[in-house]
């Protein structure tokens, strides 16, 4: 079974090829079977491989399919590496991916680009699997770029609308910035260690480089740059809210469960390198903390249902970065797992609201959907509870672990995380109260079919009970040293549990019972500006606009006539000029010809005289 590891990323790729070549000729039924079925087969294979892996004491298993390139001392094989970390990621990608594919078969059934959609989704899943299973950094980079491509194609899926194309372009360009940093990191690592195979690279680095030296700091920082771009953390986070222009299943799969977690996976995978560079690891934590706060505040004032969830994703990944930064590696991956469950659930539920409610996105135009769409309502409840980390949900276990680890590292970070948890509670329940409670403004168009409902049910179950999963990640990560504080019932633990509940209560007071009015609060001068500030994502879009976009456009406008092209234009211009001059000599007038003959004679005699 383990030998079939190479097939796991290959089968979705085959699905992609089939759909690309013959998609237009196939019926909807066959397309959905090919599209969802390929991911289902991969999920099945992953499960079987998983059982065998767990039986075998979780020995890391390497499977090399073939050689990609060998140049001098660079040897890059198509190699796949299975250990507990990649096993976890494998489950997330194939499992949640399969559920989302089934959901999309229902969600996208009226769309003319049905085959194209599933083709791109399969391409994406294949690339993500390559990324997660890669045993060397070059193959990982291939998967990295592949998911970027898939993201671009899927965000701009409805390409008739220009704004979708701009959003896709924005996502691609911003992640590109991170990718360049990562590529530079790869170059640095290769020139110094002469190998890009992950395991040997990490052991070489640990033995050869001293902690805190320039080389590990530089390479870790560069890899961090790549992770920041892909995972939408500060300062490269502005692309994710705009990426909501894509279809909702895309947002669920790519921008909640898988692609944006690739950065977290990268850092977790290369964690020995980060252990060698404590300053960079601290930077990871700080970036995570700042991002979760910024995104949380922005989510508080948004009115588009998907944008709330997008900022929420940024915020939750901030928690994962925070965990990585303080050394709680397993906690970060655990939070990645639970986040995949409840965020996918939330996005899919939001999708069913949108598709069944006149494609409306503004939550203040909705209301009272509790009675009309009960399944969606309970999915949202469960998802939001997990998001806010209310006790006994899966989100609670993972976030609690992170916050406790943060406290052990630095109380300041813990306080920031705490504030973030409070805000998370407020905005997630704000969403629920505004959309599902209150008076119903319009009637529901249609109910979601079973294709959309069953995945919601399954994900709801996972979001509720997923916290019970014990992932054996200790075989991969160094165990966080217990600092002797038993956190079970002391003050810190109590406050950590209480803060999301306080957030829930605040949301109840503002949005459910109407005791306080958010409207009146934000009408005041300072509060109003603050609200505007948060709404625009802390002004970062405007900042980048003035700092980067405007100068670039100005320079491009100045170079409108393309200086470099001037060489070729100049050649043509010169030839035309010469032609004009040459044809001017053919006047057709006899006296002119006579004069030219005399001129020639004079010239030749002169040469004869002077030589």
């Amino acid at each position: 079974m383990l030998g079939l590891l190479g097939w796991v990323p290959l089968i979705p790729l085959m699905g992609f090829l089939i759909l690309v070549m013959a998609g237009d000729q196939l019926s909807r039924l066959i397309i959905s079977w090919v599209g969802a079925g390929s991911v289902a087969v991969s999920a099945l294979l992953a499960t079987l491989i998983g059982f065998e892996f767990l039986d075998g004491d979780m020995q890391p298993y390497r499977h090399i399919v073939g050689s990609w390139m060998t140049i001098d001392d660079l040897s890059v094989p198509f190699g796949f590496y299975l250990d507990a970390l990649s096993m976890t990621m494998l489950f997330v990608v194939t499992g949640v991916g399969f559920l989302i594919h089934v959901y999309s078969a229902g969600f996208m059934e009226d769309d003319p680009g049905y085959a194209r959609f599933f083709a791109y989704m399969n391409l994406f899943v294949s690339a993500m699997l390559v990324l997660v299973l890669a045993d060397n950094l070059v193959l990982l980079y291939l998967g990295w770029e592949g998911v970027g491509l898939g993201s671009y194609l899927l965000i701009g899926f409805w390409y008739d609308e220009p704004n979708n194309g701009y959003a896709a372009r924005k996502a691609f360009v911003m992640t590109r910035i991170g990718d360049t940093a990562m590529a530079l990191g790869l170059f640095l690592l290769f020139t110094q260690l002469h190998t890009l195979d992950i395991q040997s690279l990490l052991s070489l680095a640990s033995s050869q480089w001293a902690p805190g030296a320039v080389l590990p700091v530089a390479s870790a920082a560069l890899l961090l740059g790549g992770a920041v771009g892909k995972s939408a953390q500060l300062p490269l986070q502005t692309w994710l809210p705009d990426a909501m222009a894509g279809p909702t299943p895309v947002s669920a799969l790519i921008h909640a469960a898988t692609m944006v977690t690739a950065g977290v996976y990268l850092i977790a995978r290369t964690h020995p390198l980060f252990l060698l560079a404590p300053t960079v690891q601290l930077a990871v934590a700080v970036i995570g903390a700042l991002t979760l706060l910024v995104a949380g505040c922005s989510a508080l004032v948004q009115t588009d249902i998907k944008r709330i969830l997008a900022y929420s994703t940024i915020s939750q990944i901030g928690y994962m970065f925070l965990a990585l930064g303080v050394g709680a590696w397993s906690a970060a991956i655990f939070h990645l797992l639970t986040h995949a469950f409840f965020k996918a659930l939330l996005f899919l539920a939001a999708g069913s609201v949108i598709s069944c409610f006149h494609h409306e996105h503004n939550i203040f135009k909705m209301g009272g959907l509790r009675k009309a769409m009960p399944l969606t309502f309970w999915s949202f409840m469960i998802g939001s509870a997990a998001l806010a980390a209310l006790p006994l949900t899966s989100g609670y276990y993972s976030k609690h672990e992170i916050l406790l680890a943060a406290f052990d590292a630095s109380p300041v970070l813990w306080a920031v995380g705490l504030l973030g948890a409070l805000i998370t509670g407020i905005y997630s329940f704000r969403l629920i109260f505004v959309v599902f409670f209150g008076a119903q403004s319009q009637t529901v168009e249609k109910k979601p079919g079973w294709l959309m409902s069953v995945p919601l049910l399954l994900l709801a179950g996972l979001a509720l009970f997923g916290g019970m999963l014990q992932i054996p990640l200790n075989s991969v990560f160094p165990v966080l040293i217990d600092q002797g504080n038993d956190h079970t019932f002391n003050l810190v633990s109590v406050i950590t549990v209480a803060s999301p509940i306080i957030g829930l209560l605040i949301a109840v007071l503002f949005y459910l019972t109407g005791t306080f009015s958010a409207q009146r609060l934000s009408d005041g001068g300072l509060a109003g500006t603050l609200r505007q500030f948060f709404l625009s994502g802390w002004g970062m879009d405007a900042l980048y606009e003035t700092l980067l976009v405007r100068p670039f456009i100005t320079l491009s406008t100045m170079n409108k006539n393309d200086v470099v092209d001037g060489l070729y234009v100049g050649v043509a211009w010169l030839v035309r000029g010469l032609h004009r001059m040459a044809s001017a000599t053919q006047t057709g007038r006899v006296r002119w010809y006579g004069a030219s003959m005399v001129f020639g004679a004079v010239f030749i005699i002169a040469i004869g005289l002077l030589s």
Partner: protein
Amino acid sequence: MLALILFYITSAVAIFATVMMITRLNAVHGLLYLILSLLAVGVIFFLLGAHFAAVLEVIIYAGAIMVLFVFVIMMLNLGQKTIEQERIWLQPGIWRGPSLLALILFVEMFVIIVLGGNAETGQVVNSKQVGIALFGPYLLAVELASMLLLAGLVGAYHLGKPMLKATRSRGHS
């Protein structure tokens, strides 16, 4: 000595006549000046001792070829309109370019001539010598010259035929 003075006078006449010829508005006037120039050159031939050539110059060049010109000009019957047109065409500014070009040519050739050695002319070559040469070594040239004249004759006849028809029809109606 005498020959030299006569040479200077005659060449002055020739040059003057040529200059006048090229600046006349009326074609007939220019023609007459041309005839004068040719006659002057004929005198120079005589001064150089080329009696046969001098006679040829006067009889054939000035006598036949120029008369041909006269006939054609008369036949065309251009009139006052042409003279006005010539006045418009011959602006003073128009002389600059060609004069410059010709001047450069003149300077070059002047240099070449002056660089040659000195020599004296004046040996009389009389008609008898020329005749003997014509009937001797240059016999073929004579024949070819007659071929050329035949060709010119045929060409002139062929090219002039429609004109002939046109004038005849004009004359009849």
